[in-house]
């Protein structure tokens, strides 16, 4: 049981890191960015490619991948979101344009095999791969019957530190105040002289960089990198997390991530089958019906 709770905390931190980026965009721009899961996947794929195909050390590859994912965020903003804002399109249309981008990203990776256009990025088509053994040291400790892995421990620390930093930036810095102003009231922010488009662009950059980081950590710790890790493994769960935590709330997304991890694991231990996944979504349904503001909504009402 203790092992299962450790498992829950670990997967919870991946969910949280993924969902923080998701919820950040929703909080500031009021749109659901469905390309976020594709960026998550690319974070893992780019890191893998730099390590396995181009021979870079893991840390350097990871930094580059996170930056590239941030740039992809800018691409999402400029291709799929800004044109729609300029046309005053309803927020729902952003759903469609980001789905379009996600399709493109996934298809590019899925079709990349040796000798094709994108073979510099990926050579394994629809297959699942993992980092070459030894690329990242992974000491595994067995303490009192529990298995604790170095990478998972590192990921836990990384995600908590990052989320604290993000929380600090948003609460206490100039940029953070501008961000919150835009999130609260876009029109008032414009009147205050805040460059809203720049805030949007930097939101997308940060959100996508976090998404990419979550993806590469996922690929590292779970030995699974494929074109589908974002779409199949985390996308819907990410949605569940940001709803559990209250849409647009960052502390909510963090708590929601750990909560979902825990609910899933407990349901699995209790029922021992994929009722577990059903339980997570039933919880989502119930939370929305009973507390539309999210589980922590009352205390964390303020956005972000």
């Amino acid at each position, binding site marked *: 049981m203790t092992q299962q709770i450790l498992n829950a905390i670990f997967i919870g931190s991946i969910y949280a890191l993924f969902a923080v980026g998701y919820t950040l965009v929703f909080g500031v721009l009021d749109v659901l960015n469905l390309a976020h899961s594709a960026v998550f996947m690319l974070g893992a794929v780019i890191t893998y490619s730099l390590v396995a195909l181009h021979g870079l050390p893991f840390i350097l590859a990871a930094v580059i991948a996170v930056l590239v994912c941030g740039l992809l965020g800018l691409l999402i903003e400029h291709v799929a979101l800004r044109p*729609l804002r300029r046309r005053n399109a309803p927020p729902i249309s952003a759903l469609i344009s980001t789905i379009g981008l996600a*399709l493109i990203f996934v298809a590019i990776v899925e079709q990349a095999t040796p000798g094709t256009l994108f073979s510099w990025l990926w050579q394994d088509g629809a297959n699942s791969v993992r980092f070459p053994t030894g690329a990242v040291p992974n000491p595994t400790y067995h303490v009192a019957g529990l298995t604790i892995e170095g990478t998972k421990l590192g990921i836990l620390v990384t995600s908590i530190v990052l989320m604290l930093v993000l929380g600090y930036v948003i609460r206490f810095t100039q940029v953070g105040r501008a961000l919150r102003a835009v999130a609260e009231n876009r029109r008032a922010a414009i009147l205050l002289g805040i460059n809203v488009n720049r805030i949007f662009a930097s939101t997308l950059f940060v959100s996508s960089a976090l998404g990419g980081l979550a993806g590469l950590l996922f690929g590292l710790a779970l030995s699974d990198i494929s074109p589908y890790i974002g779409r199949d493994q985390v996308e*819907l769960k990410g949605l569940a997390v940001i709803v559990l935590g209250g849409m647009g709330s960052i502390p909510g997304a963090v708590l929601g991530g750990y909560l979902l991890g825990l609910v899933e694991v407990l349901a699995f231990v209790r029922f021992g089958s994929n*009722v577990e996944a059903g339980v997570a979504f039933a919880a989502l349904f119930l939370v929305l019906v009973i507390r539309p503001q999210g589980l922590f909504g009352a205390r964390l009402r303020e956005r972000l």
Partner: protein
Amino acid sequence: MDFFIQLFTDPVGFYNSHELLIAQIGINAILAISLFVTFYSGQLTLANAGFMAVGAYTTVIMSLYLPTPLPVDILAGTLLAGLVGLLVGLPVLRLRGIFLAIATIGFVEALRLGVILNLPITGEGQGLKNPSADPLGGIVPILVSLPIVAYIVWRLTRTKLGHAWSAIREDELAASSNGINVPIYKMIAFIIGAVLAGYAGALETHINFFVDPTEYSVTRAIQILTFAVAGGTTNVLGPIVGALFLTSLPEIIRQASSYRDVVNGVILILVIIFRPQGIVARGGFAVIRPRWWRTPWRSRGRAASAH
């Protein structure tokens, strides 16, 4: 291009070799209409995939275990979907916008993963074979149903009910203060949507031989949403055109072969950027123009897109 060449030079041959595609377009159009009805009343729901599952599984299970004639099975599936719609609608309809959408995602996945995969009668992950499937005969009821469904929904939008839906969509508070019973009208739209989705699900089992849980996931729900939004949601023609366009797209661009999904995605983005209000909507078709070029009818297009 072969697609269009055959369509225009040899329509009979085209029909014979694309019956299943045409049937699928019909199904998807009915699904898109089911989403349109709720959308028209100002609700964004993704529950349709779940209602489809109810319609489909009920029909197939009845065909397998009961001696009832096929139309009865389909009717039962459709009505049961409506009933589930009522039960789901009661708690969720006070939610708005994206919250409603996500609650319905919760419903769809809880039904699929929690219920269907764990009830032996549904065949669980194995799925169920439909004993009365007839892929080529199955197209007839679909082609007959689509215009009837479209006509009924079009008529509905012109009645008092339709006007009430419009009013709710434009401004729920104002509608309420004008004496419109908002919860009832929303519920009616939600149930009609559920019934149509259940009907489409029941019909679809007859062109596919087989029901299995993977088909009724959120992916499917989002696909239905794409049909409706890309086609346009100001009148019932929009979802039909959207379903027609997006269902046949993979066949049309088959030559693009391995990078088909890239082309798919690019087209989706272009459509939504240049026609944010959907393909079928007021506001003219060619909207590709520089920012400074404002035409008088553009503002009307914006008004149409604002809701």
